[in-house]
C-alpha cells in the first residue's frame, strides 16, 4: 500500500492546483493510496511509524525538504526502522520551493514524480549525521573561524567562505561527483579567494565559535558537532536523471 504524507503547507490555496494535478496523475497510473495530512496531526512520528507497522510498501513525502526530513526523523533509529528497511521504500513528490533533495534524486516536479513512483527505480542511500540528526543533502557553515578535527589532523580555514558537507549533491556546479553510496561525505570549502578544498571523509568534528551549522537548509545546530555517515540507510525511489551514479 502507498501512503502519501502531505505536508501542512499544502493546505494553502496556491498549492491546490499542483496537488490536484498530482492526484489525477496518481489515479491515472493506478497509484492511489492512503493520504495523511500533517496539518491536523500532533503526533507526526507516531502516525508515520504506525503506517509502517501496518505494512506500508511506500511512504511518499508530498512537500519539500522539510517533509522528507520529518519522515526520515520519524523512521531512522526507531523501533520501526527494521520493518522500514526490509519492506518499505521512500518516495518523494516535490511541490513548491525548497526541494533540493528531490532534485538530487532527479525528480523535477509533481507529475514527473508520479511517473518515477510507477517506474520504481530503487537506490540505497547513505545518510549524513550531525550529532543525532540525520541529513540527506548537506550541512553548511561559514568558513572563517571553522576548524575541522579528524583526530590525526585538523584543518583551519583562514578566509571567509562556505564549508559544505555533502552527502547527496543538489547541484551540478560542483567539481566533484558526490556519491551517496560510498560511505563518505564530501567536504567542500570555497573561499573568497576562489580557491577550493575537497576531501572525502567519514567522521570528524566541526567547530566554529560564532557560527551555526545549517542542515539541509532548514535546521540550525550549534558546534562543536560530530559529523559522520551511515551507509545504505534508506531505500529511495529515484529518477533516471538523478545527480549521482
Amino acid at each position, binding site marked *: 500500500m502507498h501512503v502519501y504524507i502531505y505536508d501542512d503547507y499544502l493546505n494553502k490555496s496556491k498549492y491546490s492546483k499542483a496537488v490536484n494535478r498530482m492526484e489525477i496523475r496518481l489515479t491515472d497510473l493506478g497509484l492511489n493510496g492512503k493520504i495523511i495530512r500533517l496539518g491536523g496531526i500532533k503526533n507526526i512520528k507516531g502516525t508515520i511509524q504506525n503506517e509502517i507497522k501496518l505494512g506500508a510498501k511506500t511512504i511518499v513525502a508530498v512537500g519539500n525538504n522539510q517533509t522528507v526530513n520529518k519522515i526520515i526523523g520519524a523512521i531512522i533509529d526507531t523501533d520501526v526502522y527494521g520493518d522500514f528497511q526490509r519492506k518499505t521504500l521512500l518516495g518523494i513528490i516535490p511541490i513548491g520551493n525548497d526541494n533540493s533533495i528531490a532534485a538530487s534524486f532527479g525528480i523535477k516536479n509533481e507529475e514527473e514524480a508520479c511517473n518515477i513512483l510507477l517506474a520504481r527505480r530503487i537506490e540505497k542511500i547513505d545518510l549524513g549525521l550531525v550529532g543525532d540528526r540525520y541529513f540527506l543533502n548537506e550541512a553548511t557553515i561559514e*568558513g572563517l573561524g571553522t576548524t575541522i578535527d*579528524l583526530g*590525526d*589532523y*585538523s*584543518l*583551519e*580555514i*583562514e*578566509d571567509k*567562505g562556505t564549508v559544505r558537507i555533502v552527502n547527496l549533491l543538489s547541484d551540478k556546479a560542483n567539481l566533484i561527483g558526490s556519491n551517496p553510496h560510498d560511505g563518505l561525505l564530501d567536504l567542500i*570549502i570555497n*573561499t573568497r*579567494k576562489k*580557491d*577550493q*578544498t*575537497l*576531501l*572525502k571523509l567519514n567522521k570528524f568534528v566541526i567547530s566554529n565559535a560564532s557560527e551555526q551549522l545549517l542542515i539541509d537548509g532548514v535546521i540550525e545546530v550549534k558546534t562543536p558537532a560530530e559529523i559522520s555517515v551511515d551507509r545504505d540507510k534508506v531505500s529511495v525511489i529515484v529518477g533516471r536523471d538523478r545527480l549521482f551514479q
Partner: protein
Amino acid sequence: MFNRENKLEKFKDAETVIGASIKVKGNFHGQGNIIIEGSLEGSLKTDASIFIGEKAKVVASVEARDLIVNGEIKGNVSVKNYLSLGSTAKINGDIQYGELSIEKGAIINGQLLSTGPAGKKINEKEEGRENKLKEEE
C-alpha cells in the same frame, strides 16, 4: 625523461585538494592523489601522487609514489618513483627518490639519495629468474 605535463594531467582526478586558505596540522595520510596549495605542518603521506603548489608551505616529512614540488618543503622527502622540482621549488631536507627532474631555479638544502626504481626492477627480475631456476631444479 620524466614528463611533468603528463604527471600534472593525473591530478585532475585528485580526491583531496587543500586550498590556499587552509592550514593543515597533524599527520595527513591519504590513499589517492593529493594537491596541496595551502600550508601543512606535521607529516604528509600517500600511496599515490602529491602535487605541492607554488604558494604552498609544507613543514613536514613527505612520502609519496610520485611528487611534484613547486612550493616549499621543510622536512625529509621520500619518493618511490618520480620526483619533479619546478623552478619555484625549495626543499630544506634530505631527499630520497626513484627518478628526479629539476628545473633551473629550484633550491635544495639537503642530501640527495637515488633508490633507482629501474635498478630495483632489474634486481627483482634477477631474483625472479633465480627462483624459477630453483623451482625447475
